[in-house]
Every structure is written in structure tokens, then in C-alpha cells.
């Protein structure tokens, strides 16, 4: 059996591999390399650039708004990663226990994910402004309002998604280990912290990876909900890059340089996070 599959793979590999490879090249690799190149140039359109060396990068560190958006993004990512994962895990834990209507609730919790970020942003803007209206204020009152507004939106959208991943992980937990633990007299609390969570580490790795990178890359929701108001105090990294790119004539390269730095930050953070959580994974 295996050798037959091996044979056909050897013959047909190109059919399976090439389409993905081409898509990967066009959709990712080429733009990525071009993006790095463009960060060293001055350009209006991407096919028409001239080399300016490192000048796009100089002054980036002194850009106060860039720094502010970096701090804002880091805080946002920490808060959402914690809240989304704890809540997602808890909800999944509830729904894997015998509970009436669990399937319905799973579907309901997952649904926010099917709505696009821009639409979510506008819907939540209406909702939150309606609430703030009672005190004669709006989301633009201060950057803190925008921050918590974004946190609420993000949690609402992502908890259901992470829940699904956690549920999948929980359902494949080995029954024998659980049973052995309860026969040995472990309390439910002990089972949760000593057995379930360690065994769930692969799912936790995936979910934290997703929430951390989503937090850093957040753009649509930020654009629609606050658009940085007031005075760019609720602006995250991706929006700052976008605004740099289009805000002034001749700043496309600077925006691109910010994007390269942005990539480095996200890559480093994601790698560290991955290393940390995978190191905690155990075998049953």
C-alpha cells in the first residue's frame, strides 16, 4: 500500500505541489522580497523605484507616533491574548462537559468569526457610541476608550474561534489517563491543572500563536472602529504603517521600511511564543 502511494507520489508530485508553490510564490514570496527591496527605495508605484539606501529607516526610531502605536499594540496583544485564551478555554471546557444545547452554543459562539473585520468595526462603533452617548461622549473621547473598545471587539470575535480549537483538543484527550486519574482520587481541579492543561499544550500553542499574531497584525477593526482617533492615540502598528504610506507625498518608502520592521517584530515575538509553549508540551 505504502509503496504504491509512494510510487504515484513520485510520478504525480508536480500536480499536487506546483499549484500551491506557484500561489505561494505569487501571493507571498515575491511580494515579500519586493517589499524588502522597496523599503530601501523611493517610489510612487512598485514598478518604478529608485534606490535611496537606508534613508527610509533613519528617523523611524525617533518617530513618536510609531513608538506610541508600538506600545499600544504590545499592550493590546498582551491583554487580548490572555483574555481570549482563558475565556476560549473556559467556554470549550464547559461545552465538552455534558450540557444541554452545547452544539447550538458552539455554533453561536463561533459565528462572530464569519463577519468581516470592517463590518464588525462599524457595528461595534455604533454599539459603543450608543452606550457612551448616555454620558455625552463618544469613542473618540480618548485613546483609552478606543483601546478597550478594540479589546471588547477582538474578544467577542475571537473567543468562539479559539473555543473550536480547544474543543477539538479536548475531545481527543485520552480517556484512559483521565479515568486513571480519577480512580487514583485526583480532584477535578487537580485533573484540570495537572492533566488536562499539560495535555492540551499543543492546542494552546496554536491558539496563543494565532491570538498573538492577530493582535499584532490587527488592521481592519482598528480602521473601522476608531481610525486612530483622537489624534492617532488609538492607532496600532498596521494602521500607522498604512497612514505613513498614504499620508504624505513621497512617504511610501518610509511606510515600507516600517512594514519591514513590523515583520521582524512579529516574527521574533511569534518564534519566542512558539518556543515557550511548545517546550511545555508533554506526551500522555
Amino acid at each position, binding site marked *: 500500500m505504502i509503496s504504491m502511494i509512494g510510487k504515484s507520489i513520485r510520478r504525480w508530485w508536480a500536480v499536487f505541489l506546483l499549484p500551491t508553490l506557484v500561489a505561494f510564490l505569487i501571493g507571498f514570496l515575491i511580494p515579500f522580497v519586493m517589499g524588502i527591496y522597496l523599503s530601501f527605495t523611493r517610489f510612487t508605484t512598485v514598478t518604478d523605484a529608485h534606490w535611496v539606501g537606508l534613508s527610509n529607516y533613519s528617523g523611524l526610531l525617533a518617530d513618536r507616533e510609531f513608538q506610541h502605536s508600538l506600545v499600544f499594540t504590545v499592550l493590546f496583544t498582551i491583554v487580548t491574548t490572555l483574555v481570549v485564551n482563558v475565556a476560549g478555554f473556559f467556554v470549550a471546557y464547559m461545552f465538552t462537559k455534558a450540557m444541554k444545547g452545547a452544539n447550538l452554543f458552539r455554533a453561536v459562539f463561533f459565528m462572530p468569526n464569519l463577519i468581516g473585520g470592517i463590518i464588525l468595526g462599524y457595528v461595534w462603533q455604533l454599539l459603543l*457610541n450608543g452606550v457612551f452617548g448616555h454620558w455625552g461622549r463618544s469613542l473618540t*473621547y480618548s485613546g483609552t476608550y478606543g483601546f478597550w473598545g478594540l479589546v471588547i471587539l477582538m474578544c467577542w470575535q475571537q473567543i468562539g474561534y479559539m473555543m473550536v480549537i480547544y474543543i477539538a483538543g479536548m475531545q481527543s484527550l485520552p480517556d484512559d489517563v483521565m479515568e486513571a486519574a480519577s480512580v487514583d482520587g485526583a480532584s477535578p481541579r487537580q485533573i484540570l491543572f495537572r492533566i488536562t492543561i499539560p495535555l492540551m499544550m499543543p492546542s494552546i500553542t496554536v491558539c496563543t500563536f494565532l491570538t498573538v499574531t492577530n493582535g499584532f497584525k490587527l488592521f481592519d477593526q482598528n480602521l473601522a472602529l476608531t481610525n486612530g482617533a483622537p*489624534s492617532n492615540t488609538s492607532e496600532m502598528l498596521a494602521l500607522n504603517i498604512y497612514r505613513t504610506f*498614504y499620508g504624505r507625498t513621497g512617504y511610501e518608502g518610509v511606510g515600507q521600511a516600517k512594514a519591514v520592521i513590523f515583520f521582524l517584530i512579529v516574527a521574533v515575538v511569534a518564534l519566542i511564543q512558539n518556543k515557550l509553549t511548545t517546550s511545555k508540551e508533554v506526551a500522555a
Partner: protein
Amino acid sequence: MQGSIKKVSATVAVLALGVAGLSGCGGGGKADDAPKASGGKVYYMNFKPEVATQWEDLAKKYTDETGTKVNVQTAASGTYDQALKSEMSKAEAPTLFQVTGPVGLKTWKDYVSDVSDTEPYRQLTDKSTALKDDSGKVVAIPFVTESIGIIYNKDILKKYCQLPDAAVKSASQIKSFKQLKAVADGLQKHRDELGIKGAFTSAGMDSSSNWRFGQQLAAVPLYYEFKDENTVQKQPATIKGTYLPEFRQMWDLYLKDSTTEPSKLGSVTLDDANSEFATGSAALYQNGTWSWTDLRDAGFQADNVGMIPMYIGVKGEQNQGLTTGTMNYWCINKKISKKDRQATEDFLKWVITSDDGKKAMSEDMGFTTPFKSFADVKTENPLVEIAQKDSKSKTEKIPWVHTMQPSATWQNNVYDAMLEYAQGTGNWDMVVHRFVDGWATEVQATKD
């Protein structure tokens, strides 16, 4: 066992990434590219989403008549620059595109070409309105003229004028900021009797509306300062903010005599302001001639609408006219073949001289055009009628000096400060700082 857990989570993760990836792909849908014709072809990148279908219809008519393929693409509102930047890097780049003024022209200086030998330039009533590049070549031709002012509801104003303590006898007597303020204060005071919620529509500061203030209202103090300094034609490197106190009293008036508390302005949109005016909840509304189509669609009567200039309290403003100008200039792409260029020029000629083209531009799109060939065209837009009357009178028209704003960042920073001032989280000094110091910084930052 561990293997299966890993497999499950890996599958889920792959699915997760897949879904996320796919959702990122949506939205960018484009109509199919221009079909290749044997002769030249035209590809027009249109700036105004509100007339997208009209341009497409017109293009189709032209193709039926002449066989030349005309492809019209329109970017979604506020994304013209993005769209144009990506279209321009394609092999089939737009042959005809738009810039918004001298600053926009700077972005595209490597792509514009000499258009002095084209029909639109020959037909231009006032040739000085065309934009030139650094070497003095004509590279951009305005094709729409628009006017901005304070639009008012005639019925409500008439009712107000009959009140015993009315500041004026008729709306036409409003000739200065002082009178405008007196009228607005009176309207606000008697709002219950008059059945309105406020004198002015809400000065919404969300992104759909902020250009009305950070850009178009700001043009008035800018113009008077430029006039003093003799730089109306050329962007100065620094400004002093001479008329910012007048700008402030106007902004205060908009905030005070309004339908909405200033602290809530961050959540109010242009649609809100538009419907407040259209439904008669407010009597005064700062906007331009283009807003007529929206008012008409909301059921507003043509004989009930009037427009006065934006008086902010500058000396000698009794003679001020509407703010008239354009942000719509045609440019022909330099980097196209001779055939395509010829086709584009022919198309433009047809648009502004043929009956079909003229009808489409003036009636269907509702434009006022600066071309001689349109002299015989009558408008159905009452605001345009007022603007035309104004342009023939001896008032001092304010040109659209806001096209000289050094960058989008400048404008955004100014209105952010105006918003913070309005909602009480910032002070006026910030507006002054961003207006004056920000100008110098931005001019410096965008220098080559």
C-alpha cells in the same frame, strides 16, 4: 496518543490559517481588464464614486459609436490613491487619471504629460486654472467647478425673519459673520417655535465628514492669509495663522448653535448632517454644490434651498463670494503608447464637445464644467444655479486653496485637534500649533 492530539490540533490549525487566509483574499475583486483592441484604447481611472455608473454608460456609448474600447474604473471613496498606485504599476496602466491639485500633482509628477495640445485645454474658459509642472508645461486640466458655502433652508429662514427679534429681514441680508452669528443664535434660541433641533447641522467629525472642516472651512482663513502674503497661486513654506481667531469663532458657532452636543461629534457622520438638513431639523448646512443630489434624493424641494458664503469675520467680507474651485483635474499618462494617447485625446474631445458627452457630464453627473463648449448647457441643480450667479457677480470668490495643503497628514492632524477641542479633551492652542507649525513641518517633510 500524543500523535493523534498533535494531528488534530495541526489539522485545526491548518484549517484556521486557511480560513483566515481566504478571508483576506476577498474584497479586492476587479472587473476584467480592458480587452485588447487593434487601435488605441482608453483606460480612465475615475475619482468620483458617485458618478461611476454614469462614466461607464458614457464609455459604452463611445465604444458603440467609434469602436474604441474605453475602460472606466472607479476606486471606492477615499481609496483613489491606493487604487491608482496599484493600477499604474500594471502593464495596462490607466491612460487617463485624475489628480486633486498641486500637491496631488507632485505625487504623480513622473507620470503626467503635456496636455496643452488637447481639446479640453483649448476649450478651457480660464486657462490659468490648469496646473503646470515645474518646467511650466500644462499637465493637468480641471474639468469640474464646484462651490462651497452655507446651504440654508429658505422656509425656515423665512419663518425666522418674521419673528419680532429677527436679526435680518431676509436671508439675502446676511453679509457678514456678525449677522450670520445673530441669525444662528436666533434660530437656536427659537428652535422649538421653528420646529428645528438646531441652527446648524451637526459638525460631524468622523472621517466621512471631517473634510468639510479640516479642509474646506480651513480654506477660508488660509485664503485671506495667502491674499495678504500674496501667495494665492503658490504654496508658501510657512504660514502665520493670521485668521485663526476668526476660524475659531466660526468653529465655536458651529459647535454651539448645533443639533448635537459637541462632545458627541466624534460619532456623527455626514449622512447624519445631510438627513438633519433634508428633514428640516436644521436650517444651515456647510457643504458644496455636489450635495444637491443627496438632498434631492432625500426629498428636498429645489426652490427651498439657498446658499451663502462662509463668512468667518474677516474685514471686508461683505464682498466675499462662494468658495469656488475644483479638486478634479484630468491628466494623461506619459508612459503609454502613441496610439493609446491618441485614443484618449479623442475620447476627451468627444466627452466635452459632443451632445452625448455634454449631456452626460452636465445632466447625468450634474457637473458644472469650466469649458466654453458647455456655454449653452442649463443646469437643474439649484445650488449650481446659485454658484453660477455668484461667479457672474462681482463678489470676491475664494479659490480652493485647500488643494495647497501640504499633505493629508496636515489635514488629519488639524481636524483631530479640532475634534479634541470640540469634545473638551484638547485646547485651541493645539489647533493653532498643528495649523501653523504643522504646515512648516509638513512642507519640509514632503520636500524632495
